Protein backbone atom coordinates (compact mmCIF):
# COMPACT_ATOMS: atom_id res chain seq x y z
CA UNK A 1 0.00 0.00 0.00
CA UNK A 2 1.49 3.32 -1.00
CA UNK A 3 1.49 6.38 1.16
CA UNK A 4 -1.11 7.98 -1.08
CA UNK A 5 -3.53 5.11 -0.59
CA UNK A 6 -3.07 5.33 3.13
CA UNK A 7 -3.80 9.00 3.26
CA UNK A 8 -6.94 8.45 1.24
CA UNK A 9 -8.01 5.68 3.58
CA UNK A 10 -7.30 7.82 6.58
CA UNK A 11 -9.82 10.31 5.34
CA UNK A 12 -12.78 8.01 4.79
CA UNK A 13 -15.26 7.57 7.56
CA UNK A 14 -18.29 5.42 8.18
CA UNK A 15 -21.70 7.01 8.22
CA UNK A 16 -24.74 5.09 9.30
CA UNK A 17 -27.87 5.87 7.35
CA UNK A 18 -30.62 4.36 9.42
CA UNK A 19 -31.87 1.98 10.77
CA UNK A 20 -34.22 4.76 11.80
CA UNK A 21 -34.03 7.49 9.23
CA UNK A 22 -36.91 9.31 7.56
CA UNK A 23 -35.41 8.75 4.12
CA UNK A 24 -35.25 4.98 4.43
CA UNK A 25 -39.03 4.65 4.85
CA UNK A 26 -38.74 1.77 7.22
CA UNK A 27 -36.12 -0.03 9.19
CA UNK A 28 -33.22 -0.12 6.79
CA UNK A 29 -29.60 0.54 7.57
CA UNK A 30 -27.03 1.57 4.99
CA UNK A 31 -23.42 1.61 6.07
CA UNK A 32 -21.87 4.36 4.02
CA UNK A 33 -18.14 4.73 3.64
CA UNK A 34 -17.67 8.40 2.92
CA UNK A 35 -14.87 10.42 1.50
CA UNK A 36 -16.03 13.87 2.47
CA UNK A 37 -19.40 14.33 0.82
CA UNK A 38 -18.75 11.54 -1.67
CA UNK A 39 -19.77 7.95 -1.21
CA UNK A 40 -17.00 5.37 -1.55
CA UNK A 41 -19.09 2.38 -0.65
CA UNK A 42 -22.63 1.73 0.53
CA UNK A 43 -23.37 -1.50 2.28
CA UNK A 44 -27.05 -2.18 2.82
CA UNK A 45 -27.96 -4.01 6.00
CA UNK A 46 -31.40 -5.49 5.67
CA UNK A 47 -33.52 -7.87 7.67
CA UNK A 48 -34.75 -5.73 10.56
CA UNK A 49 -38.32 -6.33 9.49
CA UNK A 50 -38.03 -10.04 8.83
CA UNK A 51 -41.24 -11.76 9.86
CA UNK A 52 -40.79 -15.20 8.26
CA UNK A 53 -43.73 -14.79 5.93
CA UNK A 54 -42.52 -17.59 3.68
CA UNK A 55 -42.08 -19.98 6.58
CA UNK A 56 -45.45 -18.96 7.97
CA UNK A 57 -46.96 -19.86 4.62
CA UNK A 58 -45.55 -23.34 4.91
CA UNK A 59 -47.04 -24.18 8.26
CA UNK A 60 -50.58 -23.05 7.77
CA UNK A 61 -53.35 -23.86 5.35
CA UNK A 62 -53.63 -21.99 2.09
CA UNK A 63 -56.49 -19.77 3.21
CA UNK A 64 -54.75 -18.78 6.41
CA UNK A 65 -51.96 -17.15 4.42
CA UNK A 66 -54.42 -14.67 2.84
CA UNK A 67 -53.85 -11.87 5.38
CA UNK A 68 -50.07 -12.37 5.24
CA UNK A 69 -49.71 -11.58 1.56
CA UNK A 70 -51.00 -8.06 2.09
CA UNK A 71 -48.52 -7.41 4.86
CA UNK A 72 -45.42 -7.73 2.76
CA UNK A 73 -45.84 -4.73 0.53
CA UNK A 74 -48.51 -2.96 2.52
CA UNK A 75 -48.57 0.04 0.19
CA UNK A 76 -49.77 -2.05 -2.73
CA UNK A 77 -51.41 -4.80 -0.72
CA UNK A 78 -54.06 -5.81 -3.23
CA UNK A 79 -51.46 -6.46 -5.90
CA UNK A 80 -49.65 -8.90 -3.62
CA UNK A 81 -52.80 -10.71 -2.63
CA UNK A 82 -53.71 -10.91 -6.31
CA UNK A 83 -50.46 -12.77 -6.88
CA UNK A 84 -51.11 -15.13 -3.99
CA UNK A 85 -54.67 -16.06 -4.87
CA UNK A 86 -53.85 -16.39 -8.56
CA UNK A 87 -50.91 -18.69 -7.81
CA UNK A 88 -53.04 -20.92 -5.61
CA UNK A 89 -55.85 -20.89 -8.15
CA UNK A 90 -53.47 -21.99 -10.87
CA UNK A 91 -52.13 -24.73 -8.61
CA UNK A 92 -55.55 -25.99 -7.61
CA UNK A 93 -57.14 -25.51 -11.03
CA UNK A 94 -59.85 -23.10 -9.90
CA UNK A 95 -61.47 -20.94 -12.56
CA UNK A 96 -62.49 -17.50 -11.47
CA UNK A 97 -65.72 -15.89 -12.72
CA UNK A 98 -65.09 -13.04 -15.09
CA UNK A 99 -66.77 -10.43 -12.93
CA UNK A 100 -64.45 -11.29 -10.08
CA UNK A 101 -61.43 -10.84 -12.34
CA UNK A 102 -62.74 -7.45 -13.42
CA UNK A 103 -63.21 -6.43 -9.79
CA UNK A 104 -59.70 -7.60 -9.04
CA UNK A 105 -58.28 -5.52 -11.85
CA UNK A 106 -60.25 -2.42 -10.84
CA UNK A 107 -59.26 -2.61 -7.20
CA UNK A 108 -55.67 -3.57 -7.93
CA UNK A 109 -55.21 -0.67 -10.35
CA UNK A 110 -56.71 1.75 -7.85
CA UNK A 111 -54.26 0.38 -5.33
CA UNK A 112 -51.42 0.97 -7.79
CA UNK A 113 -52.47 4.60 -8.17
CA UNK A 114 -52.60 5.03 -4.40
CA UNK A 115 -49.19 3.42 -4.08
CA UNK A 116 -47.67 5.73 -6.67
CA UNK A 117 -49.26 8.74 -5.00
CA UNK A 118 -47.81 7.74 -1.65
CA UNK A 119 -44.43 7.23 -3.29
CA UNK A 120 -44.57 10.60 -4.92
CA UNK A 121 -45.33 12.39 -1.67
CA UNK A 122 -42.67 10.51 0.26
CA UNK A 123 -40.07 10.96 -2.47
CA UNK A 124 -40.60 14.69 -2.50
CA UNK A 125 -40.28 14.80 1.27
CA UNK A 126 -36.92 13.07 0.81
CA UNK A 127 -35.95 15.85 -1.54
CA UNK A 128 -37.06 18.46 0.97
CA UNK A 129 -40.44 19.46 -0.43
CA UNK A 130 -43.18 18.91 2.08
CA UNK A 131 -46.21 20.48 0.41
CA UNK A 132 -46.84 17.96 -2.42
CA UNK A 133 -47.22 15.20 0.18
CA UNK A 134 -50.40 16.86 1.40
CA UNK A 135 -51.80 17.04 -2.13
CA UNK A 136 -51.01 13.43 -2.91
CA UNK A 137 -52.45 12.25 0.39
CA UNK A 138 -55.60 14.18 -0.33
CA UNK A 139 -56.02 12.24 -3.58
CA UNK A 140 -54.93 8.99 -2.02
CA UNK A 141 -57.53 9.44 0.68
CA UNK A 142 -60.23 9.21 -1.97
CA UNK A 143 -58.91 5.86 -3.15
CA UNK A 144 -58.67 4.57 0.41
CA UNK A 145 -62.27 5.62 1.02
CA UNK A 146 -63.38 3.83 -2.13
CA UNK A 147 -61.50 0.67 -1.28
CA UNK A 148 -62.63 0.80 2.33
CA UNK A 149 -66.23 0.94 1.21
CA UNK A 150 -65.91 -2.44 -0.48
CA UNK A 151 -63.11 -4.24 1.32
CA UNK A 152 -63.68 -2.94 4.84
CA UNK A 153 -60.07 -1.98 5.47
CA UNK A 154 -57.88 0.89 4.43
CA UNK A 155 -54.39 -0.45 4.07
CA UNK A 156 -53.82 -4.16 4.57
CA UNK A 157 -56.71 -5.47 2.54
CA UNK A 158 -57.83 -9.03 2.76
CA UNK A 159 -60.36 -8.98 -0.03
CA UNK A 160 -59.51 -11.58 -2.64
CA UNK A 161 -60.40 -15.18 -2.00
CA UNK A 162 -59.53 -18.34 -3.87
CA UNK A 163 -62.06 -18.36 -6.66
CA UNK A 164 -63.11 -14.73 -6.54
CA UNK A 165 -63.56 -11.86 -4.15
CA UNK A 166 -65.47 -11.86 -0.89
CA UNK A 167 -67.84 -8.94 -1.59
CA UNK A 168 -69.39 -7.66 -4.75
CA UNK A 169 -68.94 -4.04 -5.72
CA UNK A 170 -71.98 -1.78 -5.66
CA UNK A 171 -73.24 1.14 -7.70
CA UNK A 172 -71.92 3.65 -5.19
CA UNK A 173 -68.44 2.29 -5.68
CA UNK A 174 -68.73 2.47 -9.46
CA UNK A 175 -70.03 6.04 -9.35
CA UNK A 176 -67.39 7.01 -6.81
CA UNK A 177 -64.62 5.51 -8.91
CA UNK A 178 -65.84 7.31 -12.01
CA UNK A 179 -65.81 10.63 -10.23
CA UNK A 180 -62.41 9.85 -8.76
CA UNK A 181 -61.02 9.22 -12.26
CA UNK A 182 -62.33 12.61 -13.34
CA UNK A 183 -60.85 14.28 -10.31
CA UNK A 184 -57.48 12.57 -10.64
CA UNK A 185 -57.23 13.48 -14.30
CA UNK A 186 -57.94 17.11 -13.51
CA UNK A 187 -55.26 17.04 -10.82
CA UNK A 188 -52.49 15.78 -13.10
CA UNK A 189 -51.73 19.17 -14.75
CA UNK A 190 -51.53 20.65 -11.27
CA UNK A 191 -48.95 18.03 -10.25
CA UNK A 192 -46.97 18.68 -13.38
CA UNK A 193 -46.79 22.41 -12.84
CA UNK A 194 -46.24 22.06 -9.10
CA UNK A 195 -43.62 19.32 -9.21
CA UNK A 196 -42.46 18.21 -12.65
CA UNK A 197 -41.69 21.68 -13.91
CA UNK A 198 -40.19 22.86 -10.64
CA UNK A 199 -36.60 23.89 -11.24
CA UNK A 200 -35.31 22.67 -7.87
CA UNK A 201 -36.94 19.30 -8.36
CA UNK A 202 -35.53 19.01 -11.87
CA UNK A 203 -32.04 19.96 -10.76
CA UNK A 204 -32.18 17.28 -8.10
CA UNK A 205 -33.48 14.57 -10.40
CA UNK A 206 -32.23 15.07 -13.92
CA UNK A 207 -29.07 13.10 -14.50
CA UNK A 208 -29.00 11.86 -10.90
CA UNK A 209 -29.00 8.21 -9.93
CA UNK A 210 -28.36 6.84 -13.39
CA UNK A 211 -29.04 3.13 -13.80
CA UNK A 212 -28.06 1.60 -17.16
CA UNK A 213 -30.41 -1.00 -18.60
CA UNK A 214 -27.60 -3.54 -18.44
CA UNK A 215 -27.30 -3.10 -14.66
CA UNK A 216 -31.05 -3.58 -14.29
CA UNK A 217 -30.78 -6.82 -16.20
CA UNK A 218 -27.92 -8.10 -14.09
CA UNK A 219 -29.72 -7.46 -10.83
CA UNK A 220 -33.15 -8.43 -12.06
CA UNK A 221 -34.66 -5.03 -11.42
CA UNK A 222 -38.21 -4.66 -12.69
CA UNK A 223 -41.08 -2.24 -12.63
CA UNK A 224 -40.63 1.51 -12.98
CA UNK A 225 -36.89 1.17 -12.34
CA UNK A 226 -36.46 -1.00 -15.42
CA UNK A 227 -38.89 1.01 -17.53
CA UNK A 228 -37.11 4.18 -16.46
CA UNK A 229 -33.97 2.68 -17.98
CA UNK A 230 -35.55 2.24 -21.36
CA UNK A 231 -36.57 -1.42 -21.24
CA UNK A 232 -40.18 -2.01 -22.13
CA UNK A 233 -41.10 -4.82 -19.77
CA UNK A 234 -44.37 -4.98 -17.94
CA UNK A 235 -45.77 -8.26 -16.66
CA UNK A 236 -49.27 -7.13 -17.57
CA UNK A 237 -48.14 -6.85 -21.18
CA UNK A 238 -45.39 -9.46 -21.50
CA UNK A 239 -46.95 -12.29 -19.52
CA UNK A 240 -50.61 -11.29 -19.46
CA UNK A 241 -52.68 -12.55 -16.58
CA UNK A 242 -56.21 -12.00 -15.34
CA UNK A 243 -58.23 -9.91 -17.82
CA UNK A 244 -55.51 -7.42 -18.70
CA UNK A 245 -55.34 -8.49 -22.38
CA UNK A 246 -58.84 -7.07 -22.81
CA UNK A 247 -57.76 -3.54 -22.06
CA UNK A 248 -56.03 -0.95 -24.13
CA UNK A 249 -53.18 0.65 -22.22
CA UNK A 250 -49.64 1.62 -22.98
CA UNK A 251 -46.46 0.90 -21.06
CA UNK A 252 -44.58 4.13 -20.37
CA UNK A 253 -40.85 3.85 -21.03
CA UNK A 254 -38.19 6.51 -20.58
CA UNK A 255 -34.64 5.81 -21.68
CA UNK A 256 -32.65 8.20 -19.47
CA UNK A 257 -32.36 5.89 -16.46
CA UNK A 258 -32.21 8.73 -13.94
CA UNK A 259 -34.50 9.69 -11.08
CA UNK A 260 -36.51 11.91 -13.40
CA UNK A 261 -37.20 9.02 -15.78
CA UNK A 262 -38.47 6.86 -12.94
CA UNK A 263 -40.62 9.72 -11.73
CA UNK A 264 -42.10 10.20 -15.19
CA UNK A 265 -42.78 6.49 -15.60
CA UNK A 266 -44.80 6.46 -12.40
CA UNK A 267 -46.69 9.61 -13.28
CA UNK A 268 -47.62 8.14 -16.65
CA UNK A 269 -48.56 4.88 -15.01
CA UNK A 270 -51.11 6.68 -12.87
CA UNK A 271 -52.78 7.90 -16.05
CA UNK A 272 -52.61 4.46 -17.65
CA UNK A 273 -54.05 2.80 -14.56
CA UNK A 274 -56.94 5.25 -14.62
CA UNK A 275 -57.53 4.27 -18.25
CA UNK A 276 -57.62 0.60 -17.33
CA UNK A 277 -60.04 1.23 -14.48
CA UNK A 278 -62.27 3.27 -16.74
CA UNK A 279 -62.41 0.57 -19.39
CA UNK A 280 -63.00 -2.11 -16.79
CA UNK A 281 -65.91 -0.19 -15.29
CA UNK A 282 -67.32 0.19 -18.78
CA UNK A 283 -67.16 -3.48 -19.63
CA UNK A 284 -67.67 -5.24 -16.32
CA UNK A 285 -70.04 -8.18 -16.87
CA UNK A 286 -72.77 -9.25 -14.50
CA UNK A 287 -72.54 -12.56 -12.75
CA UNK A 288 -71.21 -14.22 -9.64
CA UNK A 289 -68.10 -12.96 -7.90
CA UNK A 290 -67.14 -16.30 -6.40
CA UNK A 291 -66.45 -19.59 -8.10
CA UNK A 292 -68.74 -22.40 -7.09
CA UNK A 293 -67.53 -25.45 -5.27
CA UNK A 294 -64.27 -24.14 -3.96
CA UNK A 295 -63.49 -26.60 -1.18
CA UNK A 296 -63.30 -25.14 2.30
CA UNK A 297 -59.92 -26.74 2.88
CA UNK A 298 -57.84 -26.63 -0.27
CA UNK A 299 -55.64 -29.60 -1.04
CA UNK A 300 -54.10 -29.01 -4.44
CA UNK A 301 -52.61 -32.03 -6.17
CA UNK A 302 -48.88 -32.55 -6.07
CA UNK A 303 -47.10 -30.05 -8.23
CA UNK A 304 -45.75 -26.57 -8.31
CA UNK A 305 -46.47 -23.31 -10.00
CA UNK A 306 -45.09 -19.85 -10.34
CA UNK A 307 -47.22 -16.80 -10.81
CA UNK A 308 -46.09 -13.24 -11.09
CA UNK A 309 -47.97 -10.01 -11.30
CA UNK A 310 -46.95 -6.46 -12.01
CA UNK A 311 -47.01 -4.96 -8.55
CA UNK A 312 -46.53 -1.25 -8.01
CA UNK A 313 -42.77 -1.77 -7.70
CA UNK A 314 -42.18 -4.42 -10.28
CA UNK A 315 -42.66 -8.07 -10.88
CA UNK A 316 -43.96 -9.73 -7.72
CA UNK A 317 -43.95 -13.49 -7.93
CA UNK A 318 -44.80 -16.50 -5.83
CA UNK A 319 -43.69 -20.07 -6.28
CA UNK A 320 -45.83 -22.54 -4.45
CA UNK A 321 -44.95 -26.21 -4.22
CA UNK A 322 -47.68 -28.55 -3.12
CA UNK A 323 -47.20 -32.08 -1.85
CA UNK A 324 -50.91 -32.77 -1.77
CA UNK A 325 -51.48 -31.68 1.82
CA UNK A 326 -53.51 -28.74 3.04
CA UNK A 327 -50.45 -26.54 3.53
CA UNK A 328 -47.87 -25.69 0.88
CA UNK A 329 -44.63 -27.65 0.98
CA UNK A 330 -42.74 -24.54 -0.04
CA UNK A 331 -43.78 -20.99 -0.60
CA UNK A 332 -41.22 -18.63 -2.08
CA UNK A 333 -41.78 -14.96 -2.71
CA UNK A 334 -39.94 -12.97 -5.31
CA UNK A 335 -40.15 -9.40 -4.18
CA UNK A 336 -39.33 -6.61 -6.62
CA UNK A 337 -37.85 -4.26 -4.03
CA UNK A 338 -35.11 -6.71 -3.15
CA UNK A 339 -33.83 -6.77 -6.73
CA UNK A 340 -34.39 -3.08 -7.27
CA UNK A 341 -32.47 -2.27 -4.14
CA UNK A 342 -29.58 -4.62 -4.96
CA UNK A 343 -28.29 -2.33 -7.66
CA UNK A 344 -28.08 0.57 -5.22
CA UNK A 345 -24.61 -0.34 -3.97
CA UNK A 346 -23.09 -0.47 -7.42
CA UNK A 347 -24.76 2.61 -8.83
CA UNK A 348 -24.29 4.88 -5.87
CA UNK A 349 -20.47 4.75 -5.70
CA UNK A 350 -18.87 8.10 -6.28
CA UNK A 351 -22.02 10.18 -5.93
CA UNK A 352 -22.85 12.84 -3.41
CA UNK A 353 -24.73 11.86 -0.28
CA UNK A 354 -27.65 14.13 -1.12
CA UNK A 355 -27.95 12.54 -4.56
CA UNK A 356 -27.83 9.09 -3.02
CA UNK A 357 -30.90 9.95 -0.97
CA UNK A 358 -32.72 11.11 -4.09
CA UNK A 359 -31.69 7.87 -5.76
CA UNK A 360 -32.85 5.80 -2.80
CA UNK A 361 -36.18 7.57 -2.82
CA UNK A 362 -36.66 7.11 -6.53
CA UNK A 363 -36.32 3.32 -6.21
CA UNK A 364 -39.59 3.29 -4.26
CA UNK A 365 -38.57 0.82 -1.60
CA UNK A 366 -40.91 -0.76 0.87
CA UNK A 367 -38.54 -2.24 3.39
CA UNK A 368 -40.87 -4.85 4.95
CA UNK A 369 -41.25 -6.27 1.48
CA UNK A 370 -37.47 -6.71 1.13
CA UNK A 371 -37.24 -8.35 4.53
CA UNK A 372 -40.54 -10.21 4.43
Amino acid sequence: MSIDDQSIHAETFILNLGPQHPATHGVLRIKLTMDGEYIVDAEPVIGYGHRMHEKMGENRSYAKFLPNASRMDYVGALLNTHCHVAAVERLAGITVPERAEFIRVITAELNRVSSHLLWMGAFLVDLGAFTPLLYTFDDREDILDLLESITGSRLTYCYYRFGGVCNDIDDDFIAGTRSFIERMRSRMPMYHSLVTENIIFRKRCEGIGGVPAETCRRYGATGPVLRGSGVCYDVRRNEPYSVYPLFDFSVPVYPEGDCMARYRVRMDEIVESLRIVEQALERIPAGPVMAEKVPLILKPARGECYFNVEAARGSFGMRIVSDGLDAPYRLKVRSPCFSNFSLFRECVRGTLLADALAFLGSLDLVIPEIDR
Partner: protein
Amino acid sequence: MKSDLRSYLKEIIGGSISLLTGMWITLRQSFRKPVTVSYPYRTLKLPERFRGHIELKADEQGWAKCVVCMACQKACPSFCIKVNGYKPAGMPRKVATIYILDFTTCSLCGLCVESCRFDALMFSREYNLASFRKEDYVMDMLERLRRRRICRP
Protein backbone atom coordinates in the same frame (compact mmCIF):
# COMPACT_ATOMS: atom_id res chain seq x y z
CA MET B 1 -20.21 32.24 -25.26
CA LYS B 2 -23.30 34.15 -26.18
CA SER B 3 -25.48 31.06 -26.41
CA ASP B 4 -24.12 29.98 -23.02
CA LEU B 5 -25.25 33.21 -21.49
CA ARG B 6 -28.59 32.96 -23.21
CA SER B 7 -29.32 29.46 -21.94
CA TYR B 8 -28.15 30.52 -18.49
CA LEU B 9 -30.53 33.45 -18.44
CA LYS B 10 -33.29 31.28 -19.87
CA GLU B 11 -32.82 28.80 -17.06
CA ILE B 12 -32.92 31.49 -14.40
CA ILE B 13 -36.08 33.05 -15.78
CA GLY B 14 -37.79 29.72 -16.52
CA GLY B 15 -36.80 28.43 -13.11
CA SER B 16 -38.14 31.47 -11.32
CA ILE B 17 -41.41 31.18 -13.21
CA SER B 18 -41.69 27.51 -12.22
CA LEU B 19 -41.16 28.43 -8.57
CA LEU B 20 -43.73 31.21 -8.73
CA THR B 21 -46.21 28.83 -10.38
CA GLY B 22 -45.76 26.39 -7.51
CA MET B 23 -46.30 29.12 -4.95
CA TRP B 24 -49.37 30.30 -6.80
CA ILE B 25 -50.85 26.81 -6.64
CA THR B 26 -50.16 26.64 -2.92
CA LEU B 27 -51.60 30.09 -2.38
CA ARG B 28 -54.81 29.20 -4.19
CA GLN B 29 -55.11 26.08 -2.08
CA SER B 30 -55.03 28.19 1.09
CA PHE B 31 -58.43 29.63 0.27
CA ARG B 32 -60.12 26.30 -0.31
CA LYS B 33 -62.17 24.47 2.24
CA PRO B 34 -60.06 22.13 4.39
CA VAL B 35 -60.34 18.47 3.45
CA THR B 36 -59.80 17.27 7.00
CA VAL B 37 -62.32 17.18 9.83
CA SER B 38 -61.43 18.15 13.35
CA TYR B 39 -61.61 14.83 15.10
CA PRO B 40 -62.81 14.10 17.81
CA TYR B 41 -65.38 16.93 17.57
CA ARG B 42 -66.47 15.72 14.19
CA THR B 43 -66.21 12.20 12.90
CA LEU B 44 -66.67 10.71 9.48
CA LYS B 45 -69.37 8.24 8.62
CA LEU B 46 -68.07 4.72 8.57
CA PRO B 47 -68.75 2.68 5.45
CA GLU B 48 -71.22 -0.17 5.64
CA ARG B 49 -68.53 -2.83 5.42
CA PHE B 50 -66.16 -1.36 7.97
CA ARG B 51 -64.23 -4.07 9.74
CA GLY B 52 -63.83 -3.48 13.43
CA HIS B 53 -63.19 -6.35 15.81
CA ILE B 54 -65.70 -9.15 15.65
CA GLU B 55 -68.86 -9.23 17.68
CA LEU B 56 -71.47 -11.87 18.44
CA LYS B 57 -74.98 -11.50 17.14
CA ALA B 58 -78.02 -12.31 19.22
CA ASP B 59 -81.25 -14.00 18.17
CA GLU B 60 -84.75 -12.69 18.99
CA GLN B 61 -84.75 -14.24 22.44
CA GLY B 62 -81.47 -12.62 23.25
CA TRP B 63 -79.30 -15.73 23.11
CA ALA B 64 -76.09 -15.53 21.23
CA LYS B 65 -76.68 -17.13 17.87
CA CYS B 66 -73.45 -19.05 18.14
CA VAL B 67 -73.89 -22.83 18.12
CA VAL B 68 -70.29 -23.58 19.06
CA CYS B 69 -69.43 -25.28 15.80
CA MET B 70 -65.84 -24.11 16.14
CA ALA B 71 -65.60 -23.14 12.48
CA CYS B 72 -64.42 -19.63 13.30
CA GLN B 73 -61.83 -20.87 15.77
CA LYS B 74 -60.45 -23.20 13.13
CA ALA B 75 -60.54 -20.62 10.36
CA CYS B 76 -58.68 -17.93 12.25
CA PRO B 77 -55.09 -17.63 11.01
CA SER B 78 -53.89 -15.99 14.21
CA PHE B 79 -55.55 -18.35 16.69
CA CYS B 80 -57.25 -15.50 18.46
CA ILE B 81 -60.69 -17.01 19.02
CA LYS B 82 -61.53 -19.35 21.88
CA VAL B 83 -65.04 -20.83 21.90
CA ASN B 84 -66.60 -23.36 24.18
CA GLY B 85 -70.11 -24.29 25.20
CA TYR B 86 -72.54 -27.01 26.16
CA LYS B 87 -75.96 -28.24 25.17
CA PRO B 88 -78.53 -27.30 27.80
CA ALA B 89 -81.55 -29.52 28.31
CA GLY B 90 -84.50 -28.31 26.29
CA MET B 91 -82.41 -26.36 23.83
CA PRO B 92 -82.22 -27.61 20.28
CA ARG B 93 -78.61 -26.47 20.00
CA LYS B 94 -75.46 -25.81 21.90
CA VAL B 95 -74.91 -22.44 23.50
CA ALA B 96 -71.62 -20.69 24.00
CA THR B 97 -70.33 -20.26 27.50
CA ILE B 98 -66.94 -18.92 26.54
CA TYR B 99 -66.18 -16.73 23.58
CA ILE B 100 -62.88 -14.90 23.94
CA LEU B 101 -61.27 -12.80 21.26
CA ASP B 102 -57.62 -11.90 21.61
CA PHE B 103 -57.65 -8.72 19.58
CA THR B 104 -53.90 -8.19 19.96
CA THR B 105 -53.20 -10.72 17.25
CA CYS B 106 -56.30 -10.30 15.11
CA SER B 107 -55.49 -9.23 11.57
CA LEU B 108 -59.07 -8.23 10.70
CA CYS B 109 -59.05 -10.60 7.78
CA GLY B 110 -62.70 -11.51 8.07
CA LEU B 111 -62.19 -15.25 7.61
CA CYS B 112 -64.04 -16.01 10.85
CA VAL B 113 -67.12 -14.02 9.83
CA GLU B 114 -67.16 -15.73 6.44
CA SER B 115 -66.70 -19.18 7.93
CA CYS B 116 -69.67 -18.86 10.27
CA ARG B 117 -72.60 -20.69 8.67
CA PHE B 118 -75.03 -19.60 11.37
CA ASP B 119 -74.83 -15.84 10.88
CA ALA B 120 -73.61 -15.45 14.41
CA LEU B 121 -70.69 -13.11 13.86
CA MET B 122 -70.39 -9.57 12.63
CA PHE B 123 -67.86 -6.80 12.60
CA SER B 124 -68.29 -4.13 15.23
CA ARG B 125 -68.04 -0.49 14.27
CA GLU B 126 -65.77 0.50 17.08
CA TYR B 127 -62.42 2.05 16.36
CA ASN B 128 -61.67 4.03 19.52
CA LEU B 129 -59.73 1.23 21.11
CA ALA B 130 -56.60 2.87 22.47
CA SER B 131 -55.33 1.52 25.75
CA PHE B 132 -52.14 1.20 27.73
CA ARG B 133 -52.93 -2.30 28.90
CA LYS B 134 -52.62 -5.36 26.76
CA GLU B 135 -55.32 -7.14 28.72
CA ASP B 136 -57.92 -4.68 27.51
CA TYR B 137 -57.75 -6.32 24.13
CA VAL B 138 -58.58 -9.79 25.31
CA MET B 139 -62.30 -9.37 24.98
CA ASP B 140 -65.05 -11.52 26.35
CA MET B 141 -67.61 -11.44 23.58
CA LEU B 142 -70.43 -12.90 25.68
CA GLU B 143 -69.80 -10.27 28.30
CA ARG B 144 -70.05 -7.59 25.63
CA LEU B 145 -73.26 -9.11 24.41
CA ARG B 146 -74.63 -9.15 27.94
CA ARG B 147 -73.71 -5.55 28.37
CA ARG B 148 -75.71 -4.75 25.31
CA ARG B 149 -78.61 -6.08 27.44
CA ILE B 150 -79.92 -8.48 24.91
CA CYS B 151 -78.41 -11.64 26.22
CA ARG B 152 -79.91 -13.60 29.06
CA PRO B 153 -77.79 -13.65 32.21
